[in-house]
């Protein structure tokens, strides 16, 4: 009480300007990002369920087959890359710069492997976007995710370059934190896409 009174006497004028009392800009930005991504992926998944459930199109449409096991290996690679990006952030939080660099480099290489494997899978899959609704929605869903991986790889490339230039430290590593959140998001979305398109 006495401290509050002393503070009251010392302070003049209104309190310092502040952002919204209800939500911080960072959290608001992340909510808007999640909302926009949910709408984007949601529209593609709506098309998928319409084609498969409402229209009753067999999945995959004969005589085509989906490369489930190649996609499974690719899934393992992408999920592992989430572990390495997490390791890189934990390393820099402890001031381990080489752990950060190794983690980011490994993450970038695994992300690149995922994208190249997906491109090879596209070239050998035996059908194209024009081969019916099944083929169209398959390429749209996996391609939309591939575009997200490409964006994530671009972010990872910048993060890796910055890490090798010594831009991050135990105190300042927001660039790794934000990139890591995006990469985990991309991984979670792939798990959803893989289960929906390849497994169910």
């Amino acid at each position: 009480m006495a401290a509050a009174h002393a503070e009251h006497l010392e302070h003049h004028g209104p309190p310092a300007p502040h952002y919204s009392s209800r939500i911080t800009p960072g959290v608001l930005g992340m909510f808007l990002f999640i909302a926009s991504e949910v709408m984007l992926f949601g529209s593609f998944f709506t098309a998928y369920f319409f084609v498969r459930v409402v229209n009753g199109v067999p999945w995959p449409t004969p005589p085509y087959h989906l490369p489930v096991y190649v996609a499974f290996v690719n899934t393992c690679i992408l999920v592992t890359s989430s572990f390495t990006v997490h390791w890189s952030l934990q390393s820099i939080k402890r001031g381990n710069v080489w752990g950060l660099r190794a983690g980011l480099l490994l993450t970038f290489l695994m992300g690149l492997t995922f994208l190249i494997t997906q491109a090879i899978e596209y070239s050998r899959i035996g059908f194209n976007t024009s081969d019916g609704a099944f083929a169209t929605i398959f390429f749209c869903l996996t391609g939309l995710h591939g575009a997200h991986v490409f964006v994530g790889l671009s972010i990872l490339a910048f993060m890796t370059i910055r890490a090798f230039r010594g831009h991050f430290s135990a105190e300042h590593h927001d660039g790794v934190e934000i990139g890591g959140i995006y990469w985990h998001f991309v991984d979670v979305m792939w798990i959803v896409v893989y289960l929906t398109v390849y497994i169910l």
Partner: protein
Amino acid sequence: MRNPLRSEDEAFRFLIAALIAALVIAVAAYVNTWLGVAAAVVAVGGLVWWLREEPLPGVADAPQKLTSSSPTGMHRVLVVALPGTESVKLADGVGEVMVVVPAVSSRVQALTGDVDGRRAEAERTAAALAARIPNARAEVGADDPALAVDDALRTFGADEIVVVGDEELVDQVRGRVTIPVSRA
């Protein structure tokens, strides 16, 4: 509901949870596709429940109170009046007065954006009170009275707050500020 992407640590935890759910769904789908669909519905429900049940960071902390005062030699009063208030009786010798009228609306009105009527009512009350109270200016505040007080104090340093409303509202405002709060 907790934001699963609030930080890298939380996003990684969410990924692990999604991975476990995916394993359950994959095993169920291996047995039967419809069993996999049922497992997916249960898994999504489980994830949503988990995010809802997780305590939000900072919720357990006591809310930070706002402190405020006016320049030396002045005594400024912030009046919080609900829409429909016709008059406010203030003590003599008060310097500047600012009246804030929260545009109180129901949850449904706030969610649907149907707040024009409530805002117009708050504007009428604000104009009437500004005309009746000497040295007063008035403005319409946020739909939450406590938030309206927060916003007003950021532009108008006050030494005292007078609330025209019930005791519950007075306690609510008292819990947010360090300056004296009284009920008119």
